[in-house]
């Protein structure tokens, strides 16, 4: 089974990369982009034994830094 883990910066944490992306879009002539936030997508291939609790634990212990980031876990139907 495929699992997608989305890691994003918490609200209120400044995102210099997102800001640079927004500036670049502006430079390319795209108007109307108010903000950009850069995150990370991690895809895991897991077997049925992996519980939601275990996935949560993986996020907290490694995949996300809880000081600055939030995460969202999504199981993808095969």
């Amino acid at each position, binding site marked *: 089974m495929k699992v997608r883990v989305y890691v994003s910066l918490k609200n209120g944490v400044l995102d*210099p*990369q997102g800001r*640079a992306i927004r500036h670049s879009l502006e430079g390319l002539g795209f108007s109307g982009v108010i903000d950009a936030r850069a995150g990370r997508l991690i895809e895991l291939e897991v077997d049925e034994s992996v519980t939601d609790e275990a996935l949560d634990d993986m996020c907290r212990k490694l*995949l996300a*830094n809880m*000081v600055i980031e939030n995460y969202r876990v999504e199981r993808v139907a095969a």
Partner: protein
Amino acid sequence: MSFRAAVVTFPGSNCDRDLAVALEDVTGEECLRVWHGDADLPERLDFIALPGGFSYGDYLRSGAMAARSPIMRAVVQAAGRGVPVLGVCNGFQVLTETGLLPGALMRNAGIRFVCRNVALTVENSQSLFTSHYMKGQRITIPVAHHDGNYFADEATLDRLEGEGRVAFRYAEVVNGSARDIAGVLNDAGNVLGMMPHPERMMERAQGGTDGRTLFESAVRGLIGA
């Protein structure tokens, strides 16, 4: 007397030798070298140093993989027993990722890698690592990092300030760090993380000795000389 200091090398560390040479210079003793995959530290260590570099290629987040390497379990235990631990640059990032120090080091506010001498203010001259400086002293030490932008929530920052745990502050604009924090101590005062590289300011030929003072403070403080 003998002084037993150890430097940990992770795959991608590149300041480990400089750090070992700096310690050897001040202690007069051979610095022990430890590999990230080792499960145990040498016995009876007086000092542990985590070097700068790009451990594990900065995969996932700077310091994230190194913080979960086997040797770091031993480092966390040693720090808990009171063994002094210094983390420089990537070593600082590793210390925040292990939770030995609060906060996180994010991408520099200006996006660019910053590599130059910077002015710092010594905020705490009472700690093991800073006792040979004077409070408020202006010093110059080089930085070389992409992810040095210190972040912690306001309550944590207030607590750090209130407890005198901000060791060094940037005296100029460098990377967007919260409250210009360049180095922080843990609550027990035996763990210091800092982005500037004191091991690169050890002798006149390097442009000054402001970094040497840090190693002198720690080593003299520990051997009581």
